[in-house]
C-alpha cells in the first residue's frame, strides 16, 4: 500500500471529564481513546473490534470529527482536520458519513422516507425538486427498497429496512468514507447478512472506504480487509483480517477470538478456549505498564512496569506486546 491514506490518525487521544468537583470522588478523567495511530487506505475496510467500553465508538466519532479530540492529529484526504471548526468541517462532512446501530433513533418519525433521504441533498446540494426526486428514487433502488416505500413513515419498516434507509442517507452525498458503528448489531442473523452484502456491493459500486465497528467478530472478519483490536482505549493489534484470526499475535486478541462460540460443530472440537479471568479495568484508572497485564496469562514484571508500544512485525502486522505469540 503506497497510496496516500484517506484518513490518518496520529496519536489521537480523547478524554472525557466526568463527575462533579463537589462530590467525594470529584472530577475524573475517562481515557476513552489513548494515542491511537491508524491509517485508513482508500478502498479498504478497517474493522474495529474489542469489548464494550474499549473506545471503538469514541474513536469513530473522533475520526469523523463529531467529537473534538483532546490530543493528536487527524488528516482527511491530506487535509489537517484536527482543529477545524464545525463550519469549516461542513464541506468535508459530505465526504465522511456515519451509519449507526439504530437508524430509527436518527430518523424523524413524522417525516416520510422521501423527505428523510432528500434531507442531506437539500442541505448540501443545490438541486431542483425534480433532481432531488430522481436522486431519492435512485438511492432507494441502490439500497434495495422499492419506490413504493417513498411515502411511508419510519415505523412502517422492519429493522433491516430502516438500516437500508440509514445507509441511503449516508451515501446520498457520495462520501468517500463511511464510519459504520455497529450497523448490524441490532439485526437478526438472516437480516444481518443482507445488510453486510449490501455494504459490500456499495463499496464496490461507489468505491467507498469503510471503518466498520462491531463487537461480533465473525461479522468483522467477513467485512474487513484489516482489523484493529482495541483494549482500554488503545490498539493492541493491527493486521489483515485473515491473519489475525488464523494466528493472533497479542494475548488479548487470542483470548478474544477463542471466546467466540463456534457454530460449526465439525470445527468446534479443534478449538482451544482461553478463558480470561476478571473484567476489563476502568478507563478512569487504567493499569500501569501494559494495560492488559492484570488479565494476561503471560505477564511478567516487565509487563507491569513498561508499556509496550504498537510495533510493526513481519508482513502487515503490528502488535503492542512485549512477548507476541507469533513472530
Amino acid at each position, binding site marked *: 500500500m503506497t497510496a496516500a491514506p484517506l484518513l490518518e490518525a496520529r496519536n489521537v487521544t480523547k478524554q472525557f471529564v466526568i463527575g462533579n468537583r463537589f462530590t467525594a470522588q470529584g472530577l475524573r478523567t475517562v481515557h476513552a481513546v489513548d494515542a491511537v495511530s491508524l491509517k485508513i487506505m482508500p478502498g479498504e475496510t478497517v474493522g474495529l473490534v474489542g*469489548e464494550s467500553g474499549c473506545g471503538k465508538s469514541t474513536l469513530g466519532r473522533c475520526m469523523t470529527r463529531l467529537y473534538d479530540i483532546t490530543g493528536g492529529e487527524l488528516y482527511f484526504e491530506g487535509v489537517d482536520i484536527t482543529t477545524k471548526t464545525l463550519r469549516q468541517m461542513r464541506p468535508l462532512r459530505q465526504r465522511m458519513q456515519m451509519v449507526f446501530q439504530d437508524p430509527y433513533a436518527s430518523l424523524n418519525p413524522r417525516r416520510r422516507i422521501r423527505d428523510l433521504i432528500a434531507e442531506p441533498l437539500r442541505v448540501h446540494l443545490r438541486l431542483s425538486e425534480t433532481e432531488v426526486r430522481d436522486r431519492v428514487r435512485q438511492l432507494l433502488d441502490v439500497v434495495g427498497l422499492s419506490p413504493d416505500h417513498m411515502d411511508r413513515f419510519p415505523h412502517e419498516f422492519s429493522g433491516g429496512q430502516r438500516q437500508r434507509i440509514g445507509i441511503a442517507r449516508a451515501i446520498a452525498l457520495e462520501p468517500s468514507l463511511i464510519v459504520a458503528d455497529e450497523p448490524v448489531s441490532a439485526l437478526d442473523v438472516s437480516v444481518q447478512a443482507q445488510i453486510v452484502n449490501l455494504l459490500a456491493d456499495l463499496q464496490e459500486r461507489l468505491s467507498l472506504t469503510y471503518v466498520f465497528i462491531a463487537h461480533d467478530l465473525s461479522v468483522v*472478519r467477513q467485512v474487513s480487509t484489516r482489523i484493529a483490536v482495541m483494549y482500554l482505549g488503545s490498539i493492541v493489534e493491527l493486521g489483515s483480517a485473515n491473519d489475525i484470526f488464523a494466528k493472533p499475535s497479542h494475548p488479548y486478541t487470542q483470548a478474544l477470538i477463542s471466546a467466540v462460540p463456534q457454530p460449526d460443530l465439525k*470445527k468446534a472440537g479443534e478449538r482451544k478456549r482461553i478463558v480470561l479471568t476478571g*473484567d476489563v479495568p476502568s478507563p478512569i484508572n487504567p493499569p500501569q505498564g501494559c494495560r492488559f497485564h492484570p488479565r494476561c496469562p503471560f505477564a511478567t514484571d516487565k509487563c507491569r512496569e513498561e508499556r509496550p508500544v504498537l510495533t510493526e512485525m513481519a508482513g502487515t502486522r503490528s502488535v503492542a506486546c512485549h512477548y507476541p505469540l507469533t513472530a
Partner: protein
Amino acid sequence: MLEVRDLRISFRTEHGRVRAIDGVSFDVAESEILGVVGESGSGKTISLLAVMGLINDPNAVIEGSIKLRGRELIGLKASEMRKLRGREIAMIFQDPMTAMTPVYTIGWQIAEQIMVHERIGKKAALARAIDLLAEVNIPNPREAIERYPHQLSGGMRQRAVIAMALSCNPALLIADEPTTALDVTVQAQILDLIRKLRRVHKSAIVFITHDMGVIAETADRVMVMYSGRVVERGTKAEILLEPRHPYTKALLDSIPPLEGEKPRRLKSIPGSPPSLLDLPKGCSFGPRCPSRFDKCAEKPPLEGGAHAAACFLKAAP
C-alpha cells in the same frame, strides 16, 4: 420432567386477536439442556414465560397443557404458581436487573429469596448466599454480599442472578438470552458456569438464544422457532450438521465463518419474518423459502419423530 403440549397463546389487541404461539409442543428431560433458537419475535420468551406462569397481561389467552413432573400448570392458582417458582423452576433474563432491586445489597437479596422458601435464620441465609456466590465464581464473595447491584459489572450481576436462581436448587432453570448483552469473553465464563450447573446440580436447563454458536456450546437438544411455531427439533448434532427445515438451513448458512476462506457474499434470507397480524396461510416461512412448492399453501405439521421438521419437503438434504 417438563411436557408442553399444543401451547397456544394469543393476545386481544386493538387490531384484533394476535396469535403469538401457535401449537408449540416440547419436552425437557431431567438434567438436559434444551436450546431454543429463533429470530426476535419468534415466541421464545413468551412460551417460556408461560411455563413460569409469568404472563400477566389480562388480554392474554393461554391454551394447551404444560406439565411439570406430571402436574398441570395451566390454570394453577397464582399462589400455587408462586410457590413453584424459585423452588422448582427459576428463570434468568438478559437484563439481570429484571430480578434485582437496586436498593438492597446482593447478599440480602439472595438471603431473602432463600428465606421465602426455607425456614432458616438471616445469618444462615447469608452464609448460604456467600456459598452460592462462590459457586458462581464471584471473587471475594464475603465482600460481594455487601455490594449493591450497580457496583458490579454486567457479567458479575448476571452471576449474582444465577446464584439467586440457584438458591433453592430448582429442578428446571430457564435462561432467556443470559449472555446476549455481555462481551464474548464474559459470555464464555457464563457458558462455562451454566455447563457446570448442569454437571453439579443435575438441573434441567432451557437455554434461549438467537446465537447458533451459543447453541453449539451448550445444548443437548435444540428446538428452532419461527413466527410462533416450532419448525424443527432434534439433537444438537442433527440440527447443526443435518438441518432439515429450509429455515434452519438458511439460518446456519447466513452466519459468517470464523475460519477458512471468506465467502465473497453471505447467503441471506430475503425479506423479514412475517407480522403476527398478517401471518401467511400455510407454512409461515413460505414467502421467504427457496424450496417453496404448491403444497406449502397448507400448514405443515411437525413430523419425523425425534428429529422432526415442519416442512413438506420430505427428502433429507
